[in-house]
């Protein structure tokens, strides 16, 4: 075995280095009272990791095909690393208050390590290990507020569904092994044929990952877990872990099940339409903001998977990565604001609490409005461009005269209609902040510098990533 392979998996190696540095730093200074430098340390390390991910490494095939990396994977890793950087920056006040700051950053970094492993897996065993490395620490972070009832309840629901869904997914993988006798993606792809065993394996596998991305028939855990988890963790769950799982699903569908496209296209179309429509209808009647964002994220997951309906890998993966990038900045802006409002509001996150928010905190409500507009897809903001590219890749190569092509156009049309519904409920928040009058709105408060910094990054992303076309071009060129 060639040990130098370990140093060629640069993003993972750098994350492991970060883990060790954080651990040693925590260990060496355990008795010091206040550690104001800990959050900056973790943030700087993650920012460095983002740049490490940007370093072009080309296509690599390590450990006999267990670990594969392509430029597309590197782009996605950089995006997720940047998102984690924002999460860590924004988490300072909450993490310091919890008294277990170092543990939180280590858990977050180890979930990211799991996601990176999962995304560049070349074998189902590696994929499974990465998935579990991501979901077990995630359950710990969901349960992080030990003394809050909701956190424990959300974590119990999360870990039970996560284990159950990996069981279902493994059952599907065992069918594939029974048919092909191998677990390597490349070998399975060459032997692929649509026998009943393989179709059942595909369905089980798809539903297992559907749980992770929380697509609609598998979404029951989402609302409770998102509401119960600490706000920072909810943000992390809704963008980073979802983005990684969606990317992996797209990559496996194209690279392993590429010859069975007509089967999984039907599956995806049904699931995407259900996710977008049902989640939108449920989101309309929510009064709790985190629960509301949970349903919004289910419908956004539907939009993300719309990319897989196209039949061109390069287009689909570019649209998906770009969508996740925009979703990261817009959603993290929303969750940063929810988090800072929660800290100044005694831990409550109802939509009613935002009534008259504009009168007392005009700047924050303006930023929230921009983020909501971007999530809804209103033109000058980045959200509109990402939706546009997703729709384009969804109908890519679809011929309207064939049945499947017509279906693809139909699904994209339904998704388009749903954008209008989603505008209604995103604007409900804006209405609460600007129009609804109330006698006792939230008092004016000053947010700390970390919140300001995170919001500044998110806003720059929302305003610039759409208008500056080179961002999309960079992604499209890289993949």
């Amino acid at each position: 075995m060639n040990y130098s392979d370990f140093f060629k998996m640069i993003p993972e190696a750098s994350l492991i280095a970060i883990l060790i540095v954080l651990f040693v730093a925590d260990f060496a200074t355990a008795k010091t009272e206040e550690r104001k430098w800990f959050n900056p340390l973790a943030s700087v390390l993650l920012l460095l990791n983002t740049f490490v991910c940007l370093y072009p490494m080309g296509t690599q095939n390590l450990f006999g095909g267990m670990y594969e990396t392509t430029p597309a994977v590197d782009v996605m890793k950089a995006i997720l690393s940047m998102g984690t950087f924002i999460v860590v920056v924004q988490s300072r006040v909450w993490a310091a208050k919890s008294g277990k700051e170092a543990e939180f950053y280590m858990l977050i970094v180890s979930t990211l390590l799991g996601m990176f492993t999962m995304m560049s897996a070349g074998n189902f065993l590696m994929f499974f290990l990465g998935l579990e490395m991501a979901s077990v620490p995630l359950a710990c972070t969901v349960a992080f507020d030990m003394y809050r009832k909701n956190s424990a309840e959300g974590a119990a629901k999360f870990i039970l569904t996560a284990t159950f869904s990996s069981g279902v997914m493994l059952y599907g993988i065992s069918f594939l092994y029974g048919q092909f006798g191998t677990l390597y993606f490349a070998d399975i792809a060459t032997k692929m044929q649509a026998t009943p065993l393989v179709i059942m394996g595909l369905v089980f596998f798809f539903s297992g990952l559907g749980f992770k991305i929380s697509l609609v028939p598998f979404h029951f855990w989402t609302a409770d877990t998102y509401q119960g988890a600490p706000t920072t963790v909810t943000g992390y769950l809704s963008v980073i872990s979802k983005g990684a799982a969606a990317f992996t699903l797209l990559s496996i569908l194209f690279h392993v099940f590429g010859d069975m496209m007509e089967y999984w296209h039907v599956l995806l179309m049904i699931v995407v339409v259900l996710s977008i429509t049902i989640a939108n209808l449920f989101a309309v009647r929510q009064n709790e903001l985190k629960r509301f964002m949970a349903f919004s994220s289910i419908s956004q997951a539907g939009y993300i998977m719309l990319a897989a309906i196209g039949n061109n890998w390069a287009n689909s993966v570019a649209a998906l990565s770009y969508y996740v990038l925009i979703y990261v900045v817009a959603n993290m802006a929303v969750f940063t604001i929810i988090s800072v409002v929660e800290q100044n509001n005694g831990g409550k996150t109802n939509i009613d609490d935002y009534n008259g928010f504009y009168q007392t905190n005009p700047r924050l409500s303006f930023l929230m409005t921009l983020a909501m507009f971007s999530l809804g897809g209103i033109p000058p903001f980045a959200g509109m461009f990402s939706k546009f590219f997703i729709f384009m890749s969804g109908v890519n190569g679809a011929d309207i005269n064939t049945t499947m092509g017509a279906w693809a156009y139909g699904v994209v049309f339904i998704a388009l209609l749903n954008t209008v519904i989603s505008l209604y409920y995103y604007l409900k928040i804006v209405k609460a902040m600007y129009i609804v009058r109330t006698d006792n709105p939230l008092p004016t408060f000053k947010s700390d510098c970390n919140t300001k910094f995170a919001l500044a990054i998110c806003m720059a992303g929302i305003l610039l990533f759409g208008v500056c076309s080179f961002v999309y071009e960079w992604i499209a060129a890289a993949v």
Partner: protein
Amino acid sequence: MIPVGYFFVLSGLLFFIGVFGFVTRRNLVAMLISVELVLNSVDINFAAFNRLLFPDGYEGMFFTLFSIGVSAAESAVALAIIINVYRHFHSDQVNSIENMKL
């Protein structure tokens, strides 16, 4: 030698017992046990397929070993979380931990 179909039926039964238990049981620990049944059915599948269909390599056996290890780690975390739930709610029944509602 026992034909592979028998193992397949056994693991299929185990899988559906697990799923059924997960859906019908109202107790967190019982739900965890049901999930373990699902994972065990996967292990049977991998081991039987490897031994009977593809005896040249050990890929399935290794997958089984990893799956056992990972499911042990998952159960450890799940049990810790269930203990925390019990501290808050003084119960491990699903009906009594409905703090958040639609």
